[in-house]
Structure formats: C-alpha cells, structure tokens
C-alpha cells in the first residue's frame, strides 16, 4: 500500500498540491483523474520520489520513499514520466534492459535477459527490439517505455499518462496490457488518465483531484455518477449506461 500524509508541494509560496492525505491500495489499477492543473502529476512524481515535497511524507509498505536507499526503492517501485528525453540513441532492447539496472547494476545475467525478453513479448515489441527509438512511432515508443518499467519487475508501477500519443486502438491495447500486468503479474499500477471513460473501463479504483485537493477516491460505481464528475471536472457531465458500463458524456 502507498500511503501519503500531509503531502504538500508549493512553488514560491504558491501551493500546487495539498496538503493531501490518502492511500493507494495494493493490487489492481488505480487511475488518477482530474482537470488540468489539479496536481495529478505532482502527486504521482512525489509518490515516485522524483520530486521533493514541501512537506509531508510518502511510504510504500511502511518504508519512506525519500529516505530509503534509492536502489532498494527501485526494486519495489518504478515510475515513468510523461516526457522522456535521452541523450543517447538507443535501441528498444537496450532501453528495456535499463529496466534491469536496479537488480543487476548494469551487468546483465541470464535472469535479466529473460525478464527483458518477457517484457518485450508482453508489449508485443519483440519484432521491433533491434530498432532505434527514433525509428518508432509515438505509440511504439510509448510501449517501449512501459516495457522498460515492467522489466524493472517492481510491485508498484506508476505511469504518468501512458495513453499520451496513442490512438484509439493503441490506447485500448495499452490498457489491456496494463490490465494483464495487474492481473497476471500481480502488479499494483497507478496511472494518470485524461479520459475518464478509459479510467472507468479499465481500472479498479479512481482517485479524483481538483485544485490540488483529493476530491474523492472510490470504486468505479462510486465515482461514475453525474454529481461526482460534474463536481470534479467543473463541467456538466451525465453518465449513461452502455453495454452494462457507465460512460460519461460531457461534450455538450
């Protein structure tokens, strides 16, 4: 379980998040939703220890993410940012192999190669493994990043907008693959999603943020209600039932 208490981030006195207190349960997929500027990425990157909080603490299974040795943390928690700028030109396989760094410190063992191959296979990248990242489409590259994070073989996986740059088909595929990672590999996945309907269709829980505060956290039926969504997104939202699933409609 990821727990955070009084977590607070401010830039030059302007609070962008919190103080918030809450938890993300172990297992399954938790989606973080909310309008722009709600503090979603700030919360996620602080949980992933990439951003130092102004105040408060984050623990994973009782261990403080900021004071635990970075290497130990990296075997328990992996995080993927939205933008990735690499100095070197890398092949897909090389990138995914970096995911094994916390375990092997760069000297890949048989076991590491197996994990890399599995991660490539899992995201259907085996054919593309020897291509350079700059020779891939945006969606393929996104999958390569996720493969790296999965190869890291951590219980907790944090993803900042993994559906960015993906078209309809690849968004669905990505969500299915993440679903499988949660169900078959037992990972706890936390992700930021823009499309509330994607969140509702594929995740177990939703955490809704607005103006740096957590408005509500709950299961899909608890969140997918017109009054809750209207409040979170500050836009009139109605919820319809399509094929037995709740679908938010907010285009009018």
């Amino acid at each position: 379980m990821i727990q955070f208490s009084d977590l607070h981030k401010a830039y030059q006195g302007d609070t962008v998040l919190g103080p918030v207190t809450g938890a993300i349960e172990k297992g399954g997929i938790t989606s973080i939703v909310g309008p722009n500027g709600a503090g979603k990425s700030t919360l996620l990157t602080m949980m992933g220890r990439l951003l130092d909080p102004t105040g408060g603490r984050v623990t994973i299974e009782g261990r403080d993410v900021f004071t635990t040795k970075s290497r130990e943390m990296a075997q328990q928690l992996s995080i993927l940012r939205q933008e990735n700028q690499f100095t070197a030109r890398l092949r897909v396989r090389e990138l995914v192999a970096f995911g094994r760094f916390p375990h092997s410190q760069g000297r890949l063992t048989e076991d590491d190669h197996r994990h890399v191959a599995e991660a490539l296979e899992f995201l259907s990248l085996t054919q593309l493994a020897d291509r350079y990242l700059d020779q891939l489409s945006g969606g393929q590259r996104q999958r390569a990043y996720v493969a790296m994070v999965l190869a890291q073989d951590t219980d907790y996986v944090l993803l900042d907008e993994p559906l960015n740059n993906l078209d309809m088909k690849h968004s669905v595929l990505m969500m299915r693959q993440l679903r499988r990672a949660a169900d078959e590999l037992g990972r706890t996945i936390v992700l930021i999603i823009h499309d509330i309907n994607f969140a509702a269709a594929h995740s177990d829980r939703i955490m809704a943020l607005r103006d740096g505060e957590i408005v509500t956290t709950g299961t899909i039926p608890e969140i997918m209600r017109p009054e809750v969504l209207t409040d979170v997104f500050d836009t009139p939202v109605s919820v319809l039932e399509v094929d037995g699933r709740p679908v938010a409609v907010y285009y009018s």
Partner: protein
Amino acid sequence: MPVSEQPTPAEPQTATVPQAPTDERGRGRSRRRLRPAAPPPGARVAIVGVLVVVAAVCYLLLFIRGSFQFAFDRRLTTLGTMVVVAFAHAVATVVFQTVTSNRILTPSIMGFDSLYVMMQTAMVFVFGGSALARTDGLPKLVVQTVLMVLFAVLLYRWLFAGRFANLHLLLLVGVVLGLAFGSLSSFLQRLLSPTDYDMLSVRLFGRMSNSDGSYLPLAFTVCLVVGAVVWHRRHRLDTLLLGRDTAVGLGVDHKRELTVLLVLVAVLVAFATALAGPMTFFGFLVATLAYQLTGTHEHRFVLPMAFLLGLFTLVAGQFLMQHVFYAAGFLTVIIEFVGGIVFLVLLLRKGTL
C-alpha cells in the same frame, strides 16, 4: 550489448596510420568502409588502440638525429604528457556531457580555460613575471588544481542541480563567464611590463613538448585513481544518459552521482590545464568523434574510445608537426583548427549532435 571478447580484426587500414594527416581523412574513410560490416564496439576500440601503438612507436623511434638516448627520453616525457592530457580531456568531456545531458558543452567551454588564464595573469600582475618560474613546482600545480576544482564544483553544482537546468541558459552563462574572465585577464595583461607579459604569454597556450617530466608520476596517479572511480561507475553513467528522472527511477542517487562526477571532471581538467595549458576544443572534438565511431552508448566502450582517439590525435599530430611541417609548437593550435573542421563535417553529414 553482450560483447566482451572480440578478436582484433587486422584491418588493412591500420598499416597506413601515421601518415594519415591528423585524422579526419582516415576516420572518414574507415567510417565508410566499416558501415557494411559494422564491427562491434570492442573491435572498433581495438582498431584505434592499434593505431595509437603504431603512431607512438613512429613518434618515439623515427627521425632521430644525434643522441638516441637524449631524443628518446625527451620524446618519452612528451608522450607521457600526451597520455595524461588525452586521458583527462577525453574522460572529463564524456563524463561531463553525460551527467549534464548535453553534447555541446564541455568543461573547457564553460569558462575553465579562461579561469586558468586569469589565474596566471593575476599571479604575474601581483608578484611579477619571475614569480611564475620561481613558484613552479608541485605545490603550485596542486594549489591551482584545487582552486579550479573549487570554482568548477560550485558553479556546476549550482547550474546543473538547480532550477536552471536549461541548456541555452548554461551556454550563455559559460560564454559570459569566459568573456568576463578573458576581459579581466586582458585588462591586467595591458598593465604588465613587456618582460612580464612575455613570461606570461608562454603559459597561455597548450604545450605538449616542454612540460616537466617530474610531474608525470603524480599526473599518472591522479589519472589512474580518477579513471578507476569512473570505470567503477560506467554502468551508472549509462543510466544517466536517460536523464535525471529515469535514472532516479532506476535507483541511481542522482544528486550524489552528479556531485562526485563533476568533482572528478574538475580534477581532471584542472590538472591537465595546469600541466599542459588550456585546450578549449580538444575534449569536445575527441568526445564527439568517439560517440560517432564507437557505435554504442555504453561508457565501457565510449570512454576508452575517446581516450584512444585523443591520444592518437596528439601523437600523430605531434609526429607530423615535428617531422613533416617542422612546427612542433603549433600542435594545439592545429588541433583546435582541424578539430573544428572535422566536427563541422561530421555534423553536416549526420545532421544531429
């Protein structure tokens, strides 16, 4: 990636080495020839290693007139200096560019050289020209190195760890610092007596051939120690290529690595500059060539490649300058000049940095 043992391919091109004018032509040709087969990185490093050995043997043994012992000893000292300079600049530049996630800036460009010039000038200005010769020795070398390391660590830490991690801003800061130090130096130089200025000006250009052999044991020790620490971190350096966030995500203590590595970079460049004078574009040239020629991002190949390329450039260049053009003193000037041209050619051909 899992390349450990490569046979050394006996490429025909290795035979033609020492004659190849500095290196851009040989390099260009080998690149084109290598493309269809693309030997693994280990083999490429080995090829350049062979080139270095051939060039070093030619430099040490050919065209000796008069006493063999005298010439050989002098050349050996110069070769030792070149090893130190090539190692320091090559390793420092590659590491610096990796930890700062850019392939444009180098420690030298970031005001290091102009700081060295300013320190020399200030010393002559305050104590007179004879002070340069009087204070020569290990203590001065060490004090100069320590001062430059302090400057660099404070500046780089502030620049790269803070909120200013913007390449263009950094470039600007580097250029402005260089200009500031430079104009302060030239102002002081104007106030010097001609004799003092004359004694100073000798110190302000990179020089391989008239360095003092007695520093070499210390220099080699510094290089070995720093080299060992960097080599130990070669895999961590690879992860730093992915940027701060990804590196932290992979369990690298980024702040600590940044500090340790920048201190090492500062030690190397400060020491090399104090030993052989400023060489602004040498590290830049060598690192850029190494990225292009190694064929991988892995530091265990890129670092040796950069060192060997740098050594080859210096040794072959010195050999040619001394025996073909009879202008040994101009080596560093030529390297900066040719280096710029090679760099532009590669840049235009590839279209990226």
